[in-house]
Every structure is written in structure tokens, then in C-alpha cells.
């Protein structure tokens, strides 16, 4: 009965999100005015839907400013620090189940053993996961999820997308997130716990969001680039040399442009 109720409720939530998604898309696409007098610019290969994504980014930012952040601030204000840490550890420990599944799917068997040991330790000695005993004995948590597994299996990343309420993603990230949600025990418990989970997630993102707010000249581009690079780094376990290759490309671009300028200058000088 409960299962039936949960399924029915989840279907209703999905319907609600779908309606909101469509309504938002239509509304935002209808907005003709922007603050910036935009000049035509080159389309970023990874972000062909930039115009739509930017609008969705603004929408999410507004929702965050007026709903998520005030609630998250209130949560942080009423909850002592040790409790916040405990709640973070608890949900993080549950996430380890997903990490172990993806360790195995990526054939990282030694790592799956370490993560399983960490999960067992935190669940027992760590009082259900509220204490991170694993870290104290040198077992750092690994970061694996279904999107990374799909990347390891050779599924292409696809274009960058900003999803309503959920934020940055890619075409590959959508099935990844669906499978991650399915593999997280939090998805199968009551709404109050899911709400605490969401509040905890938002409270943890506070530092990163503040950093973007302070450092970014264009927060949309800053978020997109750091998200895509971060995901790429996770998918390759930091072993990619892409970053260095990119740097060399950047450097050679400039060198060639400088050289071409020098050549032009020389050409002009000669013609004179």
C-alpha cells in the first residue's frame, strides 16, 4: 500500500516538475528583453543551447535567492555545527552504496572493497553514519556515480544543459542522475527526510556558490566551465592530460596570433 502510495506520489511530483519545466521554458522563451545589449558571438561547441541555458540559469538563481537560500540559512541558523556535520556524514554514508555499485561497474574492485569497508565502519562504529570513522583511519571517500560509469563505458558527454531546479548537467548526466537517484536509499524514505537531505545539500553548496558569486565575471560561463572540467576530471580519475593539452592550445593560439600580428606589422613596414 505504502509502495503504491509512494509510486503515485512520485508520479505526481514528476508531473509537477514536467509542468513547471514546460511552463518555465515557455515563459522564459517568451522573454524578449535582457539587461545586456547582446552582440552576436561564437557558439560554444559544448553549449549549443546557451540562450536557453542562460535563461534557465537565471530562473534557478532566482529560485535559489528567494526560496532555497533563505530556507537553507534558517536551517543553518537553528542547527548546531556538530549536527550539520552529523547530518552531512549520514547522507554521505548512504551515498557510498551508489559509489560501491559504480566501483564494480567500472571494474575498480580494489576500490570497491575499500568503499565497502568504509561503509561498514561508518554504519557500525560511526553510529549509522553520523560519524566519519573511515576518514580517521585513512579511508577517504571515493567519488563515483552513474554518469562517470557511462563515461567509462564510452557514452559521449553530449551538450551542456541547465535543468530547472536541478542545475548544470549534460545529456549523459540526465540518465546518470536518474540512476543515482534510484540507487540512493534517501529516494525511498518519507518527505521529511528528503527535505533534510535537500537542505543539507544546499547548505553544503553554500561555499561554492559564494565563491562563484565573488569571483565570477560571468557566473553562467564560470559555472559551465568549472562544471564540465570538474566532471571530466572525475570521469578520468584526474588522469587526463586534456587540461595541459588545452593550455598548450591556448598558448599556441596566442603565439600564432602574436606571430601573425608581427608578420602583418613586418608586411606593412616592408610595403612602406
Amino acid at each position, binding site marked *: 500500500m505504502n509502495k503504491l502510495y509512494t509510486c503515485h506520489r512520485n508520479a505526481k511530483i514528476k508531473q509537477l516538475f514536467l509542468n513547471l519545466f514546460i511552463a518555465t521554458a515557455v515563459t522564459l522563451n517568451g522573454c524578449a528583453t535582457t539587461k*545586456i*545589449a*547582446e*552582440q*552576436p*558571438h*561564437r557558439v*560554444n561547441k559544448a553549449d549549443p543551447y546557451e540562450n536557453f541555458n542562460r535563461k534557465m540559469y537565471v530562473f534557478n538563481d532566482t529560485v535559489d535567492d528567494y526560496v532555497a537560500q533563505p530556507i537553507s540559512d534558517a536551517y543553518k541558523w537553528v542547527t548546531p555545527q556538530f549536527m550539520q556535520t552529523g547530518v552531512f556524514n549520514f547522507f554521505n554514508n548512504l551515498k557510498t552504496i551508489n559509489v560501491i555499485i559504480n566501483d564494480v561497474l567500472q571494474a575498480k574492485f580494489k576500490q570497491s572493497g575499500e568503499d565497502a569497508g568504509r561503509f561498514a565502519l561508518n554504519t557500525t562504529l560511526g553510529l549509522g553514519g553520523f560519524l566519519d570513522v573511515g*576518514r580517521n583511519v585513512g579511508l*577517504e571517500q571515493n567519488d563515483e556515480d552513474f554518469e562517470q560509469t557511462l563515461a567509462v563505458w564510452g557514452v559521449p558527454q553530449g551538450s551542456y544543459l541547465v535543468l530547472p531546479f536541478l542545475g548544470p548537467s549534460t545529456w549523459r548526466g540526465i540518465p546518470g542522475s536518474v540512476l543515482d537517484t534510484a540507487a540512493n536509499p534517501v529516494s525511498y524514505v518519507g518527505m521529511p527526510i528528503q527535505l533534510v537531505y535537500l537542505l543539507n545539500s544546499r547548505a553544503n553548496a553554500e561555499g561554492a556558490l559564494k*565563491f562563484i558569486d*565573488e*569571483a*565570477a*565575471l*560571468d557566473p553562467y*560561463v*564560470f559555472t*559551465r*566551465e*568549472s562544471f564540465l*572540467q*570538474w566532471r*571530466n*576530471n*572525475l570521469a578520468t580519475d*584526474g588522469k*587526463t592530460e586534456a*587540461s*595541459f593539452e*588545452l*593550455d*598548450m592550445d*591556448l*598558448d*599556441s*593560439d*596566442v603565439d600564432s*596570433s*602574436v606571430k601573425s*600580428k608581427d608578420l602583418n606589422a613586418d608586411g606593412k613596414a616592408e610595403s612602406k
Partner: protein
Amino acid sequence: MVFKNIKLAVVFMLCAFATVNVFAESETGATARQVVEKFQTELINVMKNGKQLGYAGRYEKLYVPVTNSHDLTKIARIVVGKESEKLTEAQQQKLVDAFTRFSVASYAHNFKDYSGESFVFDSEEQTARGGVVVHSHLVIPDDKPVKFDYMLKEKGNSWRIINIIANGVSDLALKRSEYTTILQREGFDALIAKINEKIDNYSKQ
């Protein structure tokens, strides 16, 4: 007497050798690893006194270490990419000036206090185009370490940082995307205005 002479000769030789070595060092400059480690040490020192120094003090203390260890002129040129061709000499100079102040201000703002952090050298490698990548990580008590990879290029007789890759996120690529987008969408004046606004915000916090 003979021993005394030999001793003097050895001392003289050592002095002469030391002089040559010092000369060689100033001639060839510090290695890439030395440049990175010197900068990291200076950064940690400022963090240790961060609260007493305040933002202005940290900015002042970090100005020389940042500008000496980073090739900010080159970085400023890379981050605007091909858009630099459309900028006048005066605009390019204005960009380098604003970018330099912004870089120092970012360090002064983000490395404001100390809670036992330390940098650890991991390894270094040469890149195909004659650069050097110094791999290191920042140890943060009770937190995951952050991987810092420094990409350096030779400038004159010394090595200069042109990019920092933190946990796989390249600062140079990130900035290049931002700066070129703003130049294309809003123009040069808007870019400089945004940089100055960020510097102002850093100084007020």
C-alpha cells in the same frame, strides 16, 4: 703551516665555488619547482598572519610574490585569446593592469586565514612544448586534500606560472571562456568595469 695553507686554499676554493654558484643561480634563475615552492611558502606565511594583516596588508604582502612568480602579462593575453587582435595597445595595457590587480586581490581575499594548511610537492614533468608542470597538493586538516598543478613557462632566465589547475579545473581555460564571452557579448569597457567591480567587492569584505 702547510696544513694552514691547504686549509686556506680549500676555504678560498669553496668561497670561489660558492660565488660561481651564486652567479650561476642569478644567471639561470630559479627552477620551476623552486618558483612554485617559494610562492607557496609566501602564501602560507601571509595566511598565518592573515587576520592581523587584513585585506590591505595581505594585498601589499602578496603583490610582489604574485607578480614575480606569475607571467601575468602572458596570462592576460591568453585569457582574451583571439579577441586581443581587436584591442588597441592602450586597451591591452589597461587589461594587463586590471588583470594584475584582480589576481593579487583574489589571492588576498581567498587566502585570508590559516588552519594548519600546507603544500606538498608531488612531482614535476616537462610538457611537449617546453613547459614544466609542477604537481602538488594542499593538505587541509579534517578535509580532502586539493590537487594543485602549476603550469610554468620560461621567461627570460626564470620560470613563471601561467596556469593553475585545481582538482582538474584549469584557471586559465575558465578565465578564457569568461573573458572572451564578455568581450564578444558586451565589449572591452564592460570587461574592465566587471574586473574593477570584483576588486572593489574583495576590498570591502
